[in-house]
């Protein structure tokens, strides 16, 4: 595949599509949990779109203390406290992340959630599924499927006005013998 031909979707549009999928499954027992940091941004935007009927409880997770690569990478310099202020017990939780890749973040988030209580169910909503999962975990609600290769890095960012953009980074290090990043982006 010629890498430069990938056209990235508009993340704002994906957000609307994701909200449309979620609206029918929201009940009074639903709680949203965003995974720091991209997942929290998405959750903050989804909340007003989903809580038209009734208010929805929500929280955020920083999975730093549950990562499976701590033994290799240690603790990142920056981490945010997880904030789950509602009672997790018997809730239907929708975990929210920006980009789904290996499934390891989701596993860590589920492990952390269970330390707050035993939810009735957990499902996963993501803006983009980039493929490449390494665990038997898959998102149920997906804004878009964008299959990518391992050397490609898709990043969601948020500007000061709160609007999203996507950037694709190609790491051509191996081809050229030195680090070289080619970027394409969508706003």
């Amino acid at each position, binding site marked *: 595949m010629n890498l430069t031909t990938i056209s990235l979707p508009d993340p704002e549009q994906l957000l609307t599509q994701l909200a449309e999928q979620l609206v029918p499954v929201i009940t009074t027992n639903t709680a949203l949990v965003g995974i720091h940091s991209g997942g929290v941004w998405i959750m903050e935007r989804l909340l007003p779109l989903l809580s038209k009927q009734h208010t929805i409880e929500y929280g955020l997770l920083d999975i730093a203390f549950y990562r499976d690569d701590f033994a*290799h990478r*240690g603790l990142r310099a920056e981490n945010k406290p997880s904030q789950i202020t509602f009672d997790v017990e018997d809730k239907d939780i929708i975990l929210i992340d920006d980009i789904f890749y290996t499934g390891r973040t989701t596993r860590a988030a589920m492990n952390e959630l269970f330390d707050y209580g035993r939810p009735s169910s957990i499902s996963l909503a993501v803006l983009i599924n980039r493929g490449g999962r390494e665990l038997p975990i898959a998102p149920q609600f997906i804004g878009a499927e964008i299959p990518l290769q391992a050397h490609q890095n898709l990043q969601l960012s948020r500007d000061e006005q709160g609007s999203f953009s996507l950037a694709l980074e190609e790491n051509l290090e191996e081809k050229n013998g030195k680090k070289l990043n080619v970027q394409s982006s969508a706003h």
Partner: protein
Amino acid sequence: MYNPQLTSDGQLRHLLSVEGLPKKILSQILDTAESFVGVAEREVKKVPLLRGKTVCNIFFENSTRTRTTFEIAAKRLSADVLNLNVNTSSQAKGETILDTVDNLIAMHADIFVVRHKQSGAAHLIAQHVAPHIHVINAGDGRHAHPTQGLLDVFTIRRYKPEMHNLRVAIVGDVLHSRVARSEIHALTTLGVPEVRVIAPKTLLPEHVEKLGVQVFHNMKAGLKDVDVVMMLRLQNERMNGAMLPSAQEYFKTYGLTQEKLDYAKPDAIVMHPGPMNRGVEIDSAVADGNQSVILPQVTYGIAVRMAVMAILAGNSASSIAGNGS
């Protein structure tokens, strides 16, 4: 300059003293501790970070609070914990410190938490161990007690987040206190503009003002308009000869009563590292009063010690994996 506490790429390898720690690392410890405060409020108060690691508390000198908070911190990180009270073990039979340590390394200890009455004991062990093993100083002689200093600063930051706008008074036996030194270094590194010490001349080290503090010998002047009052324990057991007339006399002049506390700002907080001598350096009414944050200090001490152990254990990972990529 070689700093035995840091790895070659500037990460925390051992925690021996607050002196020489860059602001970046101090902030990293405090920010990480902030995340651990929430863990203690959950149904399950544990995270899996140190699964499979062994933390050894070697206490050559008694300390119930410090040892138990280190123990509970390690357990909440899912580490296995070994407590050695060396007073009552092989050292009594003549084993050297490093022999004791080597035996524990042979049992695959990963982190040593060390308290010793000799200054430099933790240093000695840190210089002896392999790169993947970490040493935390839990108090050495009069030298340092870095986790206490850090938990005090953490407590201050929680109640008074505007650190660059604070006036802090440290009151009492600065001369014999390893906590005071750690506190002064942490406070000045984190940008607290005014740190005062209040004590009689006999309980202040020479040239104490070189640490960047203002010196007072009078409570009324020293406590005027401060935001934080940090009381120190009167270290009776360390005192050689008569530096003070009597405990009663000391209480009259330097003991913290509500009357003296009223010189400080009305919302000032009162701290004490424990164990308290009620009626000597602090009046019971103040210790139990609504400005006291002495018990929250103990709770936050667990979060701070979790943060230190988690950061250290993570850094052995990156040193083994080279660049940590």
